[in-house]
Each structure stands twice: as structure tokens, then as C-alpha cells.
């Protein structure tokens, strides 16, 4: 089975990346600035991949992803700071509650299509943000102080789990059902796919991993505030997915890495930051209108001409 062979290949690659970075950190080759960039990169990859399953795979144009990031951030922060629970359990709480919020938002909104769905999800994300803004228990507008607990190890494990779960889901009858919905919802329905069920499932899985990213995010910056989770954050995540190429998991990972690096460096030039960032986006979209990877995966590039199995 060549599938399991390539699987172990990826495991090895992941292990090498992890070990190299971890070694550099313990040998103090990477200062805090770069460590922080790497953790931010991991968070952004998780966000990109978790939105990819909703937009890229299932074709549901949700633009309120920051709402679920907020749920994960706040709930995990409450778990560690108020309830004194261990960090791993707090991460799980953040992710599970975000998934529940995803179900709650997804069940009514996923009946809508196109622009209507986009507006409804954006609206729900704002509602979530405003709820946190008005709850004094979590600090209201001033925000909530959170201890620094996120490490490269947590962030990296988070990325690996996110990618593994979402690509396993995608490469199964369930993922194919979701892709069929993206391609043609009426035909998918006529072929026996319960379209509502799969849209909601994809949405809940996406929300779960956005919540996971939120937990790691919250414990990386000492403070979380409702303003961080506004619609601009949702658009940032959307940009990873679109720029990477709708339907390509590796594309969204690549875009998240690229844009994290670009915006980290641009933080040194606050006046021109947004202009350059926008220019990068415009240039990529001009030369690659279907995104960096189109609908292809990086792995496709290595096996041109000797393709046997199925892929999505």
C-alpha cells in the first residue's frame, strides 16, 4: 500500500521539522522574536486549514471564522485562568465548545447560499464577539489576562493533528460527499448525499480546529481582547484560503506561511505595512488567479505521470 508509505514519509518530515526547530530553541539559536513568529505561523496554518474544509472542500462561503477562534480563545482562557485546569484540557475545552458553537451557527445558516450565507456567518461572528465584549467575567472591552503557556511543541502538535484529521476526512467517502456538494449541490443530493448533514459536519470540524487555534493563540499573547476577533481577522483567514487556492490544503498551508512571514517583517514598517501586504495579494492574484496551488496539492507535483489512487 503506497498510501501508508507516503504517510510515514510525512510523519518523518514533520518529526524533522519539529526536531530542528526545537533543537534551535533549546540551543538558543532562535530568539523570542522568531519563536513567536513560528507559533503565530502554526496558529495561522490551523486557521487556514480549518476554514479550508468549509470553503475549499464543501464550498460554503463562510466569512465569520474569527468567531470560532474567539470561542476557543476565551473558553480555554477561562479554563486555565478561572478554573485552574491544566492547559491541554483547556485546549480541548476551547475546541469542543467552538465546535458546539459551529453546530449552533451552522444549522440555521447553512440553509442559505452564496452571499446570504456569507453575510449570516459574518453576523454570527460579530454576535459572538459582542457577547464576549459584554461579559464582565471575561473582562469586557479591557480583555482578559492570560498566562503564557503556548510553546512551539503545543503549536506544532496542533498543526499536525489539524492537517491529519482534515486530510483524512477529505480522503474518504465523507470528504468526497463534501466535495460533491461544492461541485454541484443538486447532483450530490440526487446521488444520495445528505447535503445538510455534511455541510454542518464540515462546519463543526472547521470550528473545532479554529477553537484549537484560539486556545493556543490566547495563551501566547498574555492578553485577549474582543477587538482582536473582529471581521478583519475573519478576512485574514479567508485570504489564506483564497490565496492558497480554493480546494487545496497544501495551498492554504503555504499561503498561511507566506503571509505570516510577510506580515511579521512588515511589522517593522507600520506606515507602509498594509500597502505592501495588499500589493502582495494583488500580485499573486494577478499572476495566479486560482491561488498559489489552484486545486492541486503539493503531493501532486511529485507524482505526475504515475498517478494511481484517488485524490481530492
Amino acid at each position, binding site marked *: 500500500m503506497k498510501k501508508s508509505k507516503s504517510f510515514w514519509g510525512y510523519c518523518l518530515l514533520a518529526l524533522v521539522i519539529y526536531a530542528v526547530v526545537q533543537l534551535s530553541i533549546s540551543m538558543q539559536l532562535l530568539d523570542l522574536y522568531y519563536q513567536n513568529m513560528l507559533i503565530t505561523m502554526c496558529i495561522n496554518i490551523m486557521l487556514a486549514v480549518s476554514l479550508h474544509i468549509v470553503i475549499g472542500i464543501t464550498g460554503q462561503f463562510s466569512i465569520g471564522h474569527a468567531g470560532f477562534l474567539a470561542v476557543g480563545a476565551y473558553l480555554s482562557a477561562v479554563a486555565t485562568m478561572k478554573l485552574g485546569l491544566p492547559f491541554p484540557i483547556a485546549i480541548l475545552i476551547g475546541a469542543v465548545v467552538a465546535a458546539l458553537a459551529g453546530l449552533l451557527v451552522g444549522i440555521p445558516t447553512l440553509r442559505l447560499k452564496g452571499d446570504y450565507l456569507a453575510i449570516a456567518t459574518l453576523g454570527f461572528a460579530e454576535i459572538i464577539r459582542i457577547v464576549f465584549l459584554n461579559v464582565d467575567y471575561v473582562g469586557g472591552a479591557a480583555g482578559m489576562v492570560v498566562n503564557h503557556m503556548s510553546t512551539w511543541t503545543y503549536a506544532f502538535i496542533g498543526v499536525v493533528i489539524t492537517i491529519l484529521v482534515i486530510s483524512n476526512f477529505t480522503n474518504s*467517502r465523507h470528504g468526497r*460527499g463534501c*466535495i*460533491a456538494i461544492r461541485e*454541484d449541490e*443538486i*447532483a*450530490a443530493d*440526487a446521488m444520495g448525499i445528505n447535503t445538510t448533514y455534511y455541510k454542518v459536519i464540515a462546519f463543526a470540524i472547521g470550528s473545532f480546529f479554529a477553537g484549537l487555534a484560539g486556545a493556543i493563540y490566547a495563551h501566547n499573547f498574555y492578553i485577549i481582547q474582543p477587538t482582536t476577533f473582529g471581521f478583519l481577522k475573519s478576512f485574514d483567514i479567508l485570504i489564506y484560503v483564497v490565496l492558497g487556492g480554493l480546494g487545496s490544503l497544501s495551498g492554504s498551508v503555504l499561503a498561511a506561511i507566506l503571509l505570516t512571514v510577510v506580515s511579521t517583517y512588515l511589522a517593522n514598517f507600520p506606515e507602509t505595512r498594509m500597502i505592501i501586504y495588499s500589493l502582495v495579494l494583488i500580485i499573486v492574484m494577478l499572476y495566479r488567479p486560482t491561488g498559489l496551488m489552484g486545486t492541486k496539492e503539493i503531493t501532486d507535483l511529485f507524482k505526475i505521470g504515475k498517478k494511481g489512487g484517488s485524490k481530492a
Partner: protein
Amino acid sequence: MTNNLLIKAENVGIQFGGLKAVQNVNMYLNKGELIGLIGPNGAGKTTTFNMLTGVYQPTEGAITFDGKKINGLKPYQVTKLGISRTFQNIRLFKDLSVLDNVKVANHNLAKHSIVSSIFRLPSHFSGEKKMEEESLAFLKIFGLDVYKDELAKNLPYGMQRRLEIARALAANPKLLLLDEPAAGMNPQETHDLMELIAFIRKEFGLTILLIEHDMHLVMGICERIYVLDHGQLIADGTPTEIRNNPKVIEAYLGEEVVD
């Protein structure tokens, strides 16, 4: 007759706003029959298919399939019960491979859960393997196995039509609805297609309802024919009866006359 009955539509009709697109349709299909549904453009043939498959909910009448009332069911539920279809304007999953198009329709053949797929449990692998084998077998019947890794959108037109039928068949139907499957095909392709339809009907013990614009073709292969005009059934009977029916001749006046 009753225990042989597969589907029955009684006084079925649908209204869009004020417009009665289809009304008072009474039709039945016995198990194993190949029945034609004909009528001029805009007569309501596709709309009738949409009602039989749950895409549209009839505003009047009842549809019974295999002893169960199916109005009110969603399309995927109707499909699970055993009705599958093709579309007049091809609706393939364009960016999926030919094989994956068929696999989507095989969805309910395997039973492995989401959890088993995420954790790659043994039931995931056995389920996916079964789907792959079954899908390849369907592609082979339709001569599409050589294209299995092509994207559906890159297939030649005639092959796309064939793939739609293969996909519909993969959903494991008792009743297959074909909406103008030969549209846009040349005579040779049409001829081959009709042989193929006759073959799969025998091979899978299917009951088939066929919408076709080409009267010759329908007359040649169908046991009975229903004729729709302006949303109403104006005739039904054997090809010979239909050919000599004055109402049918009138409805088709101006179109190519049947000989």
C-alpha cells in the same frame, strides 16, 4: 398487476406562482419496464422527473414508490429508497476524477463512519476498497475505465453523458430516470447508447423511465409511452397506439412527423 407495481403517480401536479407547470399526471411503472416520456419542449417532462425525485415537491397528488409514499422526502432520501436519475443538462462533479464521480454515488454502499475515516480504522480501508472496486466495475461496463483518472470536465461530450448514467447506476437504483440521455449525440453514439441502456436494464434488472426528444428512438425501444403536452398527459399506450393518436400528432405538429 399490483404486486408488480414499482412506482405510481396519482393526480400529481405542481404550481410555480400562478403557473400550473404540470397537472393531473397519472402514471405507473411495473417492475422491469422500459417506459418513454415524450412531449414538445416545455411540456413538463423534466418537471415531472423533479417531482418523482424530490427536487420539487408536488403541490397536489401522491407518489408511491415500492409501496411507500415518497412525496415530502428529500432527494437523497428518495435516492436511498431506490430512484436515481440523470440530468438533461449534464451535472457532473466537474473537478473530480471520473472514478470519484462514480464513488460519490457509491456513498451509501459503504458504511464506515466519519470517526473510522479520521482515525483510519480497518473499517475505513475495507469500505473504501469496496467502493473503489464497485466503481471501477461500473466504469468498465460503460467503457470509461480508461478515463478513470481524468477530470470529468475533460471528457468528450458523449462520454460525459455516459458517465452520468454510470454514476446514476452506482447509486444502486431500482428505478432509473434518464432525462434526454442522447441529447447532442450523433446517430452512431445514440445507437450505441440505446444498446447500452438495453444491456444495463437486463444486467441490473432495472426499471427505466426515459425522456427522449427523438420519437423514432423512443418508439423503437419502449414498451409503453406517456405523452405530455402543456403540463398534462394527453396520451399513453404502446408505440403503435401513440403513433396513431390524433392528439399526439397535433401536439407534435410542426415538428418532425413520425412515420
